[in-house]
């Protein structure tokens, strides 16, 4: 059984993960139908699936596939409410890349 990781990333890492699944925590800035603009140390567009329940201004954890235009096709989303420390999330994404042996199967 090949283990798979879903790397934690911020916006800046997206172009290293085109075609792969990632986990990204950010703040919902805009909701437009089935698209959302999300800020995670830079903003990106998320193409939502049907069971996504986001609210503008809330934190959200997105798991999805990175498109070539660096938008994300959402596979799963989790509303995190308002108490999210985004700076902490971004730091964790960075730490997880510094210590890949703890966080990622290559």
């Amino acid at each position, binding site marked *: 059984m090949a*283990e*798979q*990781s*879903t*790397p*934690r990333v911020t916006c800046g890492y997206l172009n290293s993960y085109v075609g792969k699944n990632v*986990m990204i*925590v950010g703040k919902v800035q805009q909701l437009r139908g089935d698209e959302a603009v999300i800020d995670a140390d830079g903003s990106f567009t998320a193409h939502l699936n049907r069971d996504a329940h986001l609210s503008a201004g809330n*934190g959200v*954890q997105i798991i999805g596939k990175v498109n070539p235009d660096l938008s994300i096709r959402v596979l*799963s989303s*989790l509303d*995190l*409410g308002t*108490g*999210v*420390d985004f700076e*902490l*999330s971004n*730091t*964790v994404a960075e*730490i*997880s890349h*510094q*210590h890949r*042996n*703890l*966080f*990622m*199967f290559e």
Partner: protein
Amino acid sequence: MSAYGGYQRTGYGAQGGEDGGGFVSGSQQGSQAGQKRNTDEYLRPVTIKQLIDSNKASYNEADVQIDGMPVTQVTVVGQVRAVNPQATNVTFKLDDGTATIDVKKWLDAGKSGGEDEVARFPLDTYVRVLGRIQSFNGKVHIGAHHMRAIEDFNEVNYHLLEATYVHLLLTKGGSAKTGGGGGDGDPNASMFVDQGNGYNAGGGGGYGGEDSRVAMCSRQAQQLYRWYQSAQGNTDGINIRDVVAGTKMSTRDVQAAADELLGHGLVYTTVDEETWAILEV
């Protein structure tokens, strides 16, 4: 053993109480003789990938090791991806983004079925699990003593940082100042000192933070602080324009880093709000 001594006094001692791990502290305190079984009984925060890797590296359940330390009790944080109620236990598939693992929560004989457990942890909720590593047919799972749903998402990130911190403490040890000291030191030695050193040891590669005064600061704040140390010379402080030019950091970053240093009382403003000087001690 010295690495273990360091862990016992710092990571565990400082944080065990907060994450509910305090209940094994009794057995931990009793490890002065260094008995093998005793040393196994500490609660280790880990990522799921560490567990999977440890299983691949070890031959039997008795000597599961992570970073060269025997481990039996672990705590992990992850999202519930699948729930599988069975006659005697409920098996959860837990995913923390690094890997997935099965968690078995055994049911009390007296109580009926696993409906409660299933209802308490719907799919995709984040949970914290305290349990024992178990290996069966070459596959590792956790026998859960305790599970609870996570209400504050920041705990997820906190756990990942704690797991990283413990890993670094065990693999790199404290800094030269305390490194070899291990269990010999005064058990009441300030844990803040140790924590600072542990952080520095971890940051050695990426952050290079050698000054314990800025150990708790962000990388950029540390960078700014070091630049200020090297550039000092004028009691009127240095204006943000010169800082930006000197550090090659963006104005926004400098502002944020300076705010952080101000908050810690490491610098103060002088002639105006955007001119700072280091507070000498």
